[in-house]
């Protein structure tokens, strides 16, 4: 058989490729290796990694947070740094791709020798990074609204969890607005499913009734079918735990079909992605939300934060909850480093365990619960106004992350790494 053609010629190609690959590896390594080993010495900066989606479909939640993190670090450095050392951010754009979260978390810990990672927007990006943080003995600050239940001493949640938010929102809707008959719409992934369970549970506990629960994949834009079903069921209130850019269509289609004058609309997620800035006044007005921070909070801390943020970022638009989360996450971490007297992950984890880590921030006092590494905070009920922002209706002081506290005790089980799904019937 004489199929020799090409093989002699191309035989070298594998060699070429492999050599090129190896060379690329060498180049990458030599570029980044220099001078990293001495990082822990006095006077050298404390490195934190920030892994968020600057590009890709999820960047709607990330862009303000990237600046929130940068602003917090900037403030810390301007006031003399931490433990006499400056803080340095290594930013990684995970491009809304979970596999990049894994890769960058590994790079941050092994190559940058970062003392903590701030980042992750979706639960899946967090779950990809958690085992890596575990493996290399580091610490992850997850600054986002999520479904709750992660019990892991190497993970700190600084955002809201469902019980916190819904224990304020739903009783308000039922008691103040008298809306008992409820219809629940949620995004079709873990957050939506767990939030919908809590919604149902709390609605029923407060004497309300749930007529239907529906889930929507994140790329659904056409809500005509569900709007017809909603009208058929004729509830008093529709609760939305819809997420992302595509789902914003719901708020428009709801207004043009049903109208908030005829039916109440309340949400656990609306406003988080700064949705109200892109809806018309009619479409945004009247949506009831529960949040730990909105720009319109009438406190000096909130006002100066919004002012500073706009000055720092050079952007004059609405800041919103996720921008503030980034800021709050870094400040809480900094408090833990100060109290530990050491930036290394294990020292910071010991400090977190004390339950004394807190930060008096733009949305009120945030304090980390030592048993769960989740954050207790003020929750504000607000309603969309026609200026692309929110009006405050009522504030609930210091709501604990009850759902996670029910299932997690890091004092008793320090090696736990489970994400519990709260037992809701």
């Amino acid at each position, binding site marked *: *058989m004489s*199929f020799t053609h090409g*093989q002699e010629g*191309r*035989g*070298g*190609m*594998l*060699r*070429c*490729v*492999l*050599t*090129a*690959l*190896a060379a*690329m*590896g*060498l180049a*990458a*390594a030599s570029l*980044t*290796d220099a001078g990293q080993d001495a990082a822990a010495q006095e006077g050298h900066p404390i490195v934190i990694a920030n892994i968020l989606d*600057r*590009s890709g479909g999820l960047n709607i939640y990330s862009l303000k947070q990237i600046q929130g993190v940068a602003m917090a670090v900037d403030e810390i450095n301007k006031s003399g740094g931490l433990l006499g050392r400056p803080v340095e951010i*290594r*930013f*990684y*754009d*995970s*491009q809304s*791709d*979970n*596999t*990049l979260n*894994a*890769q*960058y978390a*590994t*790079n941050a810990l*092994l*190559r940058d020798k970062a003392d903590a990672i701030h980042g992750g927007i*979706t*639960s*899946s990006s967090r*779950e*990809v990074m*958690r*085992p*890596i943080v575990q493996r290399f003995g580091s610490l992850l600050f997850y600054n986002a609204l999520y479904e709750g239940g992660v019990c892991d001493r190497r993970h700190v949640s600084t955002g809201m969890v469902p019980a916190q938010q819904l224990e304020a929102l739903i009783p308000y809707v039922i008691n103040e607005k008298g809306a008992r008959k409820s219809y629940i719409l949620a*995004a*079709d*992934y*873990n957050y*939506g*499913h767990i939030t919908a369970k809590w919604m149902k549970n709390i609605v029923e506990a407060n004497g309300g009734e749930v007529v239907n629960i529906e*889930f929507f*994949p*994140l790329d659904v834009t056409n809500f005509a079918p569900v709007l017809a079903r909603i009208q058929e069921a004729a509830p008093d209130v529709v609760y939305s735990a819809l997420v992302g850019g595509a789902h914003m269509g719901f708020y428009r289609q709801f207004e043009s079909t049903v109208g908030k004058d005829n039916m109440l609309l309340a949400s656990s997620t609306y406003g988080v992605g700064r949705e109200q800035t892109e809806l018309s006044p009619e479409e945004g007005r009247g949506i009831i939300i529960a949040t730990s921070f909105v720009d319109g909070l009438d406190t000096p801390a909130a006002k100066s934060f919004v002012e500073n943020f706009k000055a720092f970022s050079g952007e004059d638009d609405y800041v919103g909850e996720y921008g503030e989360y980034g800021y709050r996450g870094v400040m809480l971490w900094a408090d833990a480093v100060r109290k530990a007297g050491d930036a290394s992950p294990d020292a910071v984890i010991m400090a977190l365990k004390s339950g004394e880590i807190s930060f008096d921030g733009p949305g009120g006092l945030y304090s980390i619960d030592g048993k769960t590494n989740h954050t207790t905070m003020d929750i504000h009920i607000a309603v969309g106004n026609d200026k692309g922002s929110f009006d405050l209706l009522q504030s609930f002081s210091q709501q604990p992350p009850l759902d996670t506290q029910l299932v997690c005790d890091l004092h008793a089980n320090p090696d736990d790494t489970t994400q519990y*799904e709260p037992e809701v019937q």
Partner: protein
Amino acid sequence: MAILTTVGLMAVPSFYDFAVQYDISKIFVLALLALSMSFLWGYVGILSLGQTAMFGLGGYVYAIVAMNSVDTATAALIGIVCPTLFSAVLGYFLIWGRIGDIYFSVITLAVTLILEKAIRATSGDRFVIGKVRLNGQNGIPGVPSLEIPWEAKATLFIDGVYYLTAAVLILVYVGLRLTLTTGFGQVLVGLRENRRRVELLGYDSRHYCLGAFVLAGAVAGLAGVLFAVWGNFVGPSLFDLDRAAQIVIWVIVGGRMTLAGPILGTALVVTLTTWLGTQGVGQVTLALGAMLTLFVLLFKKGLLPTLSELLSAVARWAASRRAAR
């Protein structure tokens, strides 16, 4: 030389840290996926946009079996067998109907999108296989790495995964090259050159197309298993449109008519994407898009063939100079 290169590659872990090994392992795994497509496209002339279906299936099956506390070697094996069988069934359905080329591409794409949507819709707690929640959109985290057979309870660490993926890539590459020299492989090459002539010579091209499709499915499934081992995670994005399109890019950038080209293409594009993400240059997609567009305009056949043409042109020029003297 080839042995030297292999030895050189195998020596990388002794000189470079885990982060470098981790990045390169990912390239190795994705290069396998690119190989699975370029083998089909470059040699049989069928463009399957659905190799991600086999890739994702491999990853998911491995994750589910391994997390149901079967030993990981068995899980890996099942993770390869399932996508292979799936591609056999799918291939039979499509190839025996002698479906048109572009329809083949679209149907395979639709298959991977259906799998993606189906997996995304498994968020509720009803969707459990054995002990494993499918978790829909969120994917399955904490997928175990491969156990080391000769050490109880130990799993492959980053360097182990590096060795494994490097070895598998080299083996698959050599295996495919050898396949092409067999009688079966010769017919595949013939199909790429001139399908009608192959038929007129009496070969039933469907047997060979199906054979190649199943082989490519097995390679994609293997890549999926290794990807789960590498990232300890599987999610619906394994199946999605972005990844399906990216494979085409890797293969075209490297040049589809070779087997080595796609490996280089994968290495280049993946390295570039990863690197851009750390540069804080704003939108990675902007830079990537500009690069790809330019690439098509400047390199018609892909990087490797263009470079080798350039080299041989230079060689010819040098030879003619020498002859002139």
